[in-house]
């Protein structure tokens, strides 16, 4: 087991290099450059080239990649081409906590709301309750996320005035304070949770259904084990595998979902940073955020894989 974990850790290196290589070349292949938004006619072609040179962007791509890699190994991910005054490391450090606060809260909420609903739907398959939850969860994914976020603001901020509309803290109050931030967190977290909820409900329902029909459950039932114990001890334990897989995988998805939520709610997080990095061709930031996502995906999947073997002793890693 320990050697397996070690092996997985070592394997992260080629993955990260693979992702960085792909992203680096892809981003340079994409049409446009970091200066493309300077449309002032006074900014001539000559000046443009001069500036590209100063930014080190006119060397051959492989040379650029090697020097990027050399610096990256030292922990220096370069300076943002959009926020010229900030290093990539600084930007990521600045944005990571708001994003984690947002995504982690949503993830936990979604899991803890979705699993009971999933179990209920599975146990009472084809009941009225099952249909209501099914319909409800699909409403969640059929509504564009932008609409969902805007709708929440419309109802809870504009009409009911329960929560602030946007931002992470009351401006001017300086520092915000825990309660203040919490109040600002409610709506974005609700939006993000609703966006993920449907998928989680469906997965856990599917997984439970699968397990309930297994022989050992029937055996347990026939042996007179109470329904509660059957569901929570036997079934849930086995349904946990696809549920864990799903949670492990949703880390990457959560980040892309965070993008819309962060934009609408002016939540200063990573999703928006990486999205704008693509649109603005901010190569260093793009590399930094992609690597970060890759790292989390790899770790998330690794944790999921290891959890399998803890839940189901039959799976061995040799």
């Amino acid at each position, binding site marked *: 087991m320990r050697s397996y974990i070690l092996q997985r850790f070592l394997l992260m290196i080629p993955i990260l290099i693979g992702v960085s290589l792909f992203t680096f070349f892809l981003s340079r292949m*994409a*049409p*446009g*450059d970091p200066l*493309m*938004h*300077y*449309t*002032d*006619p*006074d*900014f*001539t*072609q000559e*000046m*443009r*080239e001069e*500036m590209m040179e*100063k*930014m080190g962007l006119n060397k051959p791509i492989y040379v650029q990649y090697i020097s990027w890699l050399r610096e990256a190994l030292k922990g220096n991910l370069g*300076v943002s081409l*959009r*926020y*010229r*005054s*900030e290093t990539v490391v600084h*930007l990521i450090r*600045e*944005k990571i906590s708001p994003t984690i606060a947002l995504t982690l809260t949503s993830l936990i909420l979604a899991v803890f709301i979705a699993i009971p609903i999933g179990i209920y739907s599975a146990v009472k398959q084809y009941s009225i309750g099952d249909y209501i939850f099914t319909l409800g969860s699909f409403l969640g994914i059929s509504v564009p996320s932008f609409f969902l976020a*805007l709708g929440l*603001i*419309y109802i809870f*901020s*504009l009409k009911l*005035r329960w929560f602030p*509309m*946007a*931002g*992470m*803290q009351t*401006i*001017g109050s*300086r520092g915000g304070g825990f309660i203040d931030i919490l109040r600002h967190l409610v709506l974005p977290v609700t939006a993000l949770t609703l966006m993920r909820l449907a998928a989680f409900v469906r997965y856990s329902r599917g997984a439970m259904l699968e397990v309930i029909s297994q022989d050992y459950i029937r055996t347990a039932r026939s042996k007179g084990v109470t329904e509660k114990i059957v569901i929570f001890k036997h079934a849930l334990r086995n349904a946990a595998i696809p549920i864990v897989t799903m949670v492990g995988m949703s880390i990457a998805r959560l980040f892309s979902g965070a993008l819309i939520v*962060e*934009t*609408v*709610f*002016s*939540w*200063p*997080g990573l999703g*928006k*940073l990486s999205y704008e990095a693509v*649109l603005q*061709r901010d190569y260093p930031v793009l590399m930094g955020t992609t690597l970060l996502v890759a790292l989390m995906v790899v770790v998330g999947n690794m944790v999921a894989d290891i959890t399998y073997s803890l839940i189901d002793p039959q799976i061995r890693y040799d």
Partner: protein
Amino acid sequence: MKKIIIITMLLSLCLMIMTTGALAQEPQYGGTLKFSMYSSPEGLWIPARGASTYDVNVNNMVYEPLIQLDKNMEPTIPRIAESWEFNDDKTKVTFKLRKDIKFHDGEPLTARDVWYTYTQIGHIDYEGTHMAYNSYLKGFDAFREDESQRGKALDYEAYMSGEEDYITGIQVINDYEIAFESTDYSSRMLADRVLGIMPYHIWKDVPIKNQHLAEELEKPIGSGPFKFEEYARDEYVLLTAYEDYYLGRPYVDELIWAIRDQEVALMELEVGELHLAEFDPNSYNLIEGFEELDVYNDLSPVYQYMGFNLQDPKLTLKTRQAMAHAIDRQGIVDSALLGFGEVVETPIVPFHWAHNPNLEGYDYNPEKAKKMLAEDGWEMGDDGVLTRDGMKFRVELLYPTGNQVRIQSAPIIQQNLAEVGIDARLNMTDWGTLLDKTERRGVPFNADQFDLVLVGLAGGVVPDQSAKYHSRNIPDGNYVGYSNEEFDKMLDDALTEPDREKAVKLYWEIQEVMSHDLPVLTLYSPNRLTAVSSSIHNVRPEAVEDNDWRAFGLVNIHEWWIED
């Protein structure tokens, strides 16, 4: 109280008198002004380098310029410079500075700071977009290539002792006098002196190369009406009133720019969380219903146009003129813009001093268009598409994502063209892809890259059109490939004509030629719609900002006050 103030640049003055007269009340001190912008500033608080409009919003509040543009886009309003005069052949302008201006840290602002602000533009390590602001000055080219400057900061003492020349065309006469000298007359000379002045004593030790990484950027010092307090990226910029502002302390205590999604900004405006936000015509019906808001409807210098690929054998002169008649530009203004804008016949916007109001232009007349196309050799095919010399009139209309109204206008243009037998395929791409197809860098120009392109531009303070239509700029800025020797000469003459009346005449002729030759068809200029909370007084939207007057006029921001 439902009050919609519709102000145009032309009517603004008399309306101003009426509204201020009606609201004659004692101004109150205190309160926080809350504005919104849609994207986060780059955080490059260095006016001399040029940055996004969002940065300019903030820089305009923190830094004070030498002079400022008036509503006809002429640099006539004194700010730091109390007066200026030209020499006889207008190649040199000498500014006299006010003596009562202090930076936010208490240091007086002198010619040294003006010298510093402008001299950095052209330094070998300069990474900015304002190179053109100095390019005609004496000694600029030599300075720009001066390798010995690499990695260095500017040294005022060395300059004053004659040890270093820097740009010989920037001459400090004494603490409160500075002159700019050009090699030939340039009509830009004055208009380019609108950058915010940076403090030399703060920046003197920072090499130009490292400016963007300097910790001085965390809390930049200027001499404008507001002091920089705090910037939280993607959240807000917080400014506080500058007690010793030379035009008087601002009435409000704080000014906040919140970074907000446009839709959310409108909702915050509705509940009074924000005081000012720009919006697009589609939201007008919504805003109109809010009682606590005044809506300002101003002309803007932005115009949208359709560029023709002039290398394309299909797009001959008469055909282009016919297409101009075929496109219902007024219809686009009435429908997509809901009337908030106007059709323009020239890239020089209507309120500019060089604008030619007498152009005949092209009215919407599909019958005339069909006739002209027939005269130009096009014959209608069985499939409803025109044919000439065995070539079908099929074109691609390329346009970028982003601007909603432009995106809406493309299918209208497509339908208009189809009505006269031109088959236009729409191609919406992201901005980078569009640039690659039009201003493709370093690749020889050819007819296949694009046919028609829809883009927008903000008309310049300087009416010069060389960057886009002078033949020497093919294929970069002049990507449509317009080549007309006579026209080139007119452009050159107009730019170096010191006499204003003669210059106006030249620009009128230039616009006539462009309107006839149609290297591009200008479509419309959208109005700028701004909603301002009714509790804010002394708002003067017509005042024009400095180097970026796309922003709502906040020039008299120190006079704005909030009614409880």
